[in-house]
């Protein structure tokens, strides 16, 4: 690696060329993610269409307050990260690191609430879909089981993406501590931010599907 302030790999003309390419790559990756979660949500809506009563019963068995609190936490984390990006644009590495720490802490809080508390409650409430003493009985049982199939798969996948995001934010913190980012060069900060916001948006799609639709 060159020791100049703005390094770039040998296939690029200059730093700006590399930065724009990296950002384009992340956008395209997010497009694949849209199709990945899109397939899941398509199946979800299709199955809900045929099993409305069961899915409604399932939605009523979810814990609205945790989901709502987590929504606020995740949106705030994206705000914190975006603030960090604004800090590094004016050259404040310290500001970037602090914002990243807040972002990662909020992400961990989300995971703690989601998997430590909510999944724990779900198991205690007998809503894991394939157990014999499933909580919801009667004609809604099949649909409600299916609802919780989607609930566990989607929150699990979203959680895995969030774990990856926290890893990436940690990586940004470590690089920032080494002083690698400047107002001229902070492409990784930008790229990780795109990913983090995407994981946030996935949650904003899952939140109404899990907690709101059919609850009333």
């Amino acid at each position: 690696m060159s020791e100049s302030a703005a390094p770039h790999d040998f296939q690029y003309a200059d730093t700006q060329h590399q930065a724009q390419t990296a950002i384009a790559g992340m956008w395209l990756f997010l497009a694949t993610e849209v199709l990945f979660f899109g397939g899941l949500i398509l199946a979800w809506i299709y199955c809900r269409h045929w099993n409305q009563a069961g899915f409604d019963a399932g939605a009523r068995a979810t814990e609205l307050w945790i989901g709502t609190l987590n929504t606020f936490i995740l949106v705030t984390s994206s705000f914190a990260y975006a603030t960090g990006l604004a800090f590094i644009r004016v050259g404040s590495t310290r500001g970037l690191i602090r914002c990243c720490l807040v972002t990662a802490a909020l992400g961990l809080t989300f995971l703690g609430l989601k998997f430590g508390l909510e999944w724990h409650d779900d198991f205690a409430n007998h809503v894991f879909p394939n157990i014999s003493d499933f909580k919801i009985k009667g004609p809604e049982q099949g649909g409600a089981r299916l609802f919780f199939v989607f609930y566990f798969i989607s929150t699990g996948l979203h959680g895995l993406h969030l774990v990856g995001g926290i890893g990436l934010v940690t990586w940004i913190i470590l690089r920032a501590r080494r002083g690698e980012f400047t107002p001229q060069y902070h492409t990784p900060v930008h790229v990780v931010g795109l990913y983090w916001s995407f994981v946030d948006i996935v949650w904003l799609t899952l939140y109404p599907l899990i907690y709101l639709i059919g609850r009333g």
Partner: protein
Amino acid sequence: MSTTVVKAGEIEGSYLTDGTTIRSWLLTTDHKRIALLYLGSITFFFFIGGIAAALVRLNLVVPEGLLNSAETYNRLFTMHGVIMVWFFLVPAVPVTLGNFVIPLMLGARDLAFPRLNLASWYLFIAGGALALWALFLGGSDTGWTFYTPLSTSYSQGHVVLMVAGIFLSGFSSIATGLNFMVSIHRLRAPGLTWYRMPVFLWSLYSLSVLMVLATPVLAITLLLVALERIFQIGAFDPAVGGDPLLFQHMFWFYSHPAVYIMILPGFGVISEIVPTFSRKRIFGYKFIVWASVSIAVISFFVWGHHMFVSGMSLYAGVVFSILSYMVAVPSAIKVFNWLGTMHKGFIHFDAPMLYALGFIGLFTIGGVTGLWLAALGADVDLTQTYFVVAHFHYVMVGGMVSAFFGGLHYWWPKITGRMYPEMWARVAAMIMFMGFNLTFFPQFILGYLGMPRRYSSYPPEFQVLNVLSSAGATILASAYLLPLGYLVWSLFRGARAPANPWHATGLEWQTSSPPPTVNFVHTPVVTQGPYEYPPPEPVQQHV
């Protein structure tokens, strides 16, 4: 990266000699070396899949089935399908020839994301290892399509492991497609406008769109299948209100575009070979490139033609049928344009051109029989018969595998710096063509006469045609072994290749054979279209 001192020459100082340790290969980020890593891997999988095919054909020599076990037979054709589709056909041309040639054609020093490129190879190897592991444990009997509820409830095989392998190799595809798309957008040499790009680049761009947007749907579908198999409950389970047809829709939403993922790079290869060996500009350049793009777009909307008999409303069937006819139009445009390119050309019958000619004929037969299957009435009779098997293999083996071998011979001097033995290559191409037709043409007749696919036994009146098909398969197998022999021989004893042995246009022929690690010591400047004859003299890459 600080400036690297590059010694470029005929062999010394090429990418092949820039580091000779195993580590320098396994941790390389050079697109050319990664292409060779992939070439070794897919060759291995091709022969694994080929062995399975050989055993399938062996079983069908006698009506009651030589293996005498339907279960074993089911596992064999599943293994053949899974390995050939995901570990050979889908990656074949893009990750080997594409990986090698794209940056050279772009006048770039590498792909946009070299480390992602290496990671995609490791994902591919990890996925392949899982699939092989499933195979050694006994495989799976679901067919390559993993239809539910067979795959989720009733199959005795190792479905989860095999699905996990395909899942990983899918992410390898996504990484490759993403890398190609971004590279073609961002790394074109000065003056290389979109309409000055070789058709190969347009084809690989189109297939990358499919890889990037269709593969994730397969990933989530297979994940749902695996979880449903593990927990015995899921979206495809009618007992709780799920729907097995939903699986088929989601599976074919990927798997129909996937056949274009497999054939589009073939179109690209043929579009390079035909002008080169006709010494003539390609006919109707813009029509060919937009045909690739429209194939990519339309192919997303034709998946329903796989499901005409599995429970679909008549109106949906009519729409999918019409859309399937539409996708034939751009494919036909390509065939006519290749013929137009050859018309009044100065044709040289070197081995790549023989493969290209084989491709055009066999692909046309495969494509036209596809129209029979797209017709609602005919499909009801022909689907689930050997007619479908023959159609698919005419496109995939007669078409795609011919294109792969054509491209491999065409770029072999560039890749290795050695010429392959021309006489042997022509012989292999001819035997391959004959062996192929003997194997698969009888299957059209078998299907037309009503022999169902995927059965380990058949009524005795079909035996003659089946024996012909199996005899053809042995010829085909020997034709595949020939290149393995003479290409390896040429690595050591082949004549040294000049920079541009075919007098081809295209930037990849402007650098040395084999190219230096940085491809071009001085970034080339493009001033004309992709197929302008005569080509300029190659630039010596000595520093």
